[in-house]
């Protein structure tokens, strides 16, 4: 069984998640969190968070237990009670 983790998002992402900003779900990686959210709320959230190659978009920041993940760490394993925070970058954008 996958570990239970807490997921937090802000209002602009909650638009694609039925208005909800906090979730408890079972997922063994950040990638699995995103898959679970798109299973529950539709594929739109996956498309907004990840590009066509499955990498997080540049202006999305993901944190696990307050530690920022690099864009290569989507597969990082989660353990019971981990807290995942998904935030749009405060500013950002492409060069």
């Amino acid at each position, binding site marked *: 069984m996958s570990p239970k983790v807490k997921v937090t998002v802000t209002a*602009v992402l909650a638009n694609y998640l039925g208005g909800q900003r906090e979730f408890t779900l079972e997922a063994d990686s950040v990638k699995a969190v995103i898959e679970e959210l798109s299973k529950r709320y539709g594929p739109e959230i996956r498309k907004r968070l990840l590009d066509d190659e499955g990498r997080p978009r540049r*202006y999305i920041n993901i944190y696990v237990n307050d530690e920022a993940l690099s864009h290569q760490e989507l597969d990082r394993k989660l353990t019971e009670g981990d807290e995942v*925070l998904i935030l749009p970058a405060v500013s950002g*954008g492409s060069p």
Partner: protein
Amino acid sequence: MVLSEALVFLECRECGKTFGHVLAHVCDECFGALEASYAPSRFSVSRSVIEGRRPSMWRYWEFLPLLDPSNKVDIGAGYTPLIRAERLAKRLGVTKLYLKNDTLNPTYSFKDRPSSLAISKAREFGLKAVGCASTGNLAGATAAHSAAAGLPCYVFMPKSVEKAKIKQAALYGAQLLLVEGTYDDANRLAALAADRLEMGIVNVNLRPYYVEGSKTMGLEIVEQLGWRTPDRIVVPTASGALFSAIFKGVGEAEQAGLISDSRVAMTCAQPLGCSPIVQAFREKSDTIKPVRHPDTIVQSLAIGEPGDGYQALRVLRESGGVAVSLTDDECVEAAALLASTEGVFAEPGGAISVAAVKRLVEEGEIGRDEEIVCCVTGSGLKTIELMPEPSGVRIIPPSIDAVKKVLNTY
């Protein structure tokens, strides 16, 4: 006169989606950053009208996104002196050097410019509380403007910032939340507070408006040079917001017909221990790698995830500028040199622009005959503990002999 909302709106930097005049900072489609845009007719103002106005950042009213002038919170930010620095120029080996002395703002840093605008917008949006994430200087600026507006203010900043900055912000009446972590940790908490508590965090959800205040530094430079650009503007850089805003301001001055040519080489200076923008520029990379653990005493520039980093990279490339990182020692030495040659007392982060000119001239990356403006962004009084013990201090007995002895050594 209250402006029509059609004149000022928000636009996504990435996908171009336009939004009305709203409190938002992220595009709901692509999560790109929003920035303020203006109908072309908004910029209709002449040089002489501006010159006839009070010396304040608000003399560039037509370039600022406030609709109702009665919402303005103005404690005197902006229109700081642009001074010709001949003695310093000689020491650096250049011929035409100017200092834009933003230590002379009401709370002693350039942050009064964006704060004045952001708190005015908070009033315009009817917000009940405001705040900021800060590396130190913004804390004082936001707290002071909030005090003047009568709004409660909450500051998120790293516990490690200089004591004077903490005390200053607290004495303006702000509630300080000192985070046991980096600026980026403080910024993340501020973003959550903005989201959950419906506060106006000046550099998070008020950011598209906030950054517009910093444009006024660029507008002032061109006006004070007689309505033209210098060859180069050198900017202390952390998030990249000021750097990008100065360039935007200069570009809008051309759009408005106030100057005929907006070309200027934008030059970015960051401390070596936290220089993600410089690194991406030097490596010709399109990716800015966040610095997870900034390692510098130049706290005011210690932002590891620069919010406007990509915008700054774009400006560097478009303007033909250059980026350089400086050691802590170079920044401290530049602050001392600036004080002893020109009488301008800056913090090491504010004097990093001077260190940058010194290094870039030595390395032949900028020409000795260029006309250069160094932005000096914050006062040294707030970082006194970073400055070396000065040599010209003596304790003497209360006797004329002692005085004579000292004077004889000169």
